[in-house]
């Protein structure tokens, strides 16, 4: 668990270093001070690096074993459920413009409902999927005239 807790400050340290490299690769400004676009990001990068290092050092003093949420998150079942939900969301993003709002929403909401509620509650799953897909399409697309694919 401590290794996982350590991963976040390590990730931030890595990100700040990558961010710094990217700052130095920025093209110079054609107007005014050529390095002006770099100053603020440099302060930010230094800030992330400094506080991430302090955080990394502080993890040693933290009682990570007491963190119930972290313990539950690291369970296989939790990671599986989060993985599936995130995968379904990515799938929705991928097909949204390709198949259109209504078809994508029917598939996405249907998949979510069946995954969370199981196949035994198919009537509820189908009812919620149909009602929310069509009503959201009607409200956003027809009533609010928001352009949906």
């Amino acid at each position: 668990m401590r290794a996982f807790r350590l991963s976040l400050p390590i990730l931030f340290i890595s990100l700040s270093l990558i961010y710094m490299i990217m700052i130095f690769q920025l093209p110079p400004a054609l107007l005014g001070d050529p390095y002006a676009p770099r100053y603020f990001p440099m302060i930010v990068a230094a800030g992330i690096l400094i506080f991430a290092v302090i955080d990394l050092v502080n993890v040693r003093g933290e009682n990570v074993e007491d963190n119930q949420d972290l313990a539950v998150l690291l369970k296989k079942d939790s990671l599986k459920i989060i993985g599936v939900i995130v995968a379904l969301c990515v799938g929705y993003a991928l097909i949204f413009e390709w198949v259109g709002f209504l078809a994508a929403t029917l598939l996405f909401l249907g998949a979510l409902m069946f995954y969370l509620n199981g196949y035994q509650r198919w009537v509820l799953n189908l009812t919620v999927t149909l009602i929310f897909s069509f009503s959201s399409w009607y409200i956003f697309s027809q009533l609010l005239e928001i352009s949906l694919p």
Partner: protein
Amino acid sequence: MSIILDGLVTALQPINLLLLVLGALLGTIVGILPGLGPATGIAVLIPLTFGMEPVSALILMTAIYIGALFGGSRSSILINTPGDGSSVAATFDGYPMTKKGQAGQAMSIAAIASLVGGIMAVFGFIFLAIPLADFALNFGPAEFVLLFLFALSIVVTLSMGNTIKGFLSMFIGLGIATIGVDLQSEVQRFTFGVPELIEGVDFIVVIIGIYAIGEVLYNLFNLNQPKATDHKIGSKWFTKEQWKRSLAPIVRSGPLGFFLGTLPGSGGTISSLFAYSAQRQLSKDPAEYGKGKVEGLVAPESANSASAVGALIPTLTMAIPGSGATAVMLGALIMIGVTPGPLLFEDSPDMIWTLINSMFIGNIILVILNIALVGVLMKVLHTPPKVLYPVILLLSFIGVYTLGYTTVDFYILLIAGVIGLLMRVMNYPVVPLILALIVGGDLEQEFQRSLVIYDNALGILFASPITIVLGILTLLSLLYPLLSVWLKNRKRKKETPSQSM
């Protein structure tokens, strides 16, 4: 004075009252939907005003504006999903109140806080519109840099005991804010060749991701865990004790929100976060904030409502919108033939005072509507979680799509959701990240402008008496955690000998 009463009479005409009720209702519905805050609410409902008399159109837009502000906080309280940035602060203690079975109390007292804040601001507008507009004109780039730094410093010190994580969270927010084109030099930064990132990351997308998606993911992995609390409905009306505790925060936060609202560009988000931070810093038990403390809910609600009125001052007197919503209103005002500017109070006083009176009456109507609707809204809590969470996910995606019409925002939403989950689980405060993301762009632009004007960063600090005061306040705010530890230790040392005796 008679012109103010004329405005009241116009606003009280039956047709205008009807429009106020209709606008308040539509605004509330729009505000509840994730991503559709007051700005989008007014924008999408503008077609309703076509063909109307200018005054009626103005009244309808005003009602939608304040209705959307109300609606945003309803979803914050009920499902931890802020409608827009200005209702983020309502999630901090509003949602924990819901978890404690106090959803009805939270919604009704938040409505009253909004009403009181709004009414205070209306009176403030009547007496202070012109002087405050003049004072706001003194805010140049250096003043804004210091104001933003002060706001960030008090939000970071909010994360008592987690100050290091608070700073880290703030710098990450500032880092995200640097994505996109630098407006001073037009250099594209960290866009990875994605055209949708040229304009930067929309903070609303990140907010909805962190709160709505993060909350859903958190609850889903906890779904099979025994719940410490269940979502009981509880009373629909707040208690005498809650009201007693709320009165001072409401009265204090109203003027603060009104003043911050008058500063161009600050808006309801900063006002409400500022009021929350100030309230927590003034509190004797800051550690209780974020756990369902009524003071933590009413302070930002009062400030948010007051800032909506305050934001109209620069909009109407200088044609400088104080927030996203007032920017849309500015466009709508011009569309109906009103030209905002210093002469507006002389040229169209009837319009101004009708607008202000409409806000006053609109707030009252909204409280009545919202308290009447508490029962209906609370039905949301009866929805089984396995049905509610997929619907929240769906609404978040649609809300985000309406902001930029691009699926790139879907991925940002999702990444923000996972980050929100990890930050929550590992006890990183998210408020500094959100505020930094909101003010980051403006902070950098003002910082760059100040560097050009004052030659160096130290010069910014001594640019004017306002910057000196704000600089001292920022320093005090940053030193506050150290000071409070020192004071506690001193107190403990003093008590120890007396106890031993």
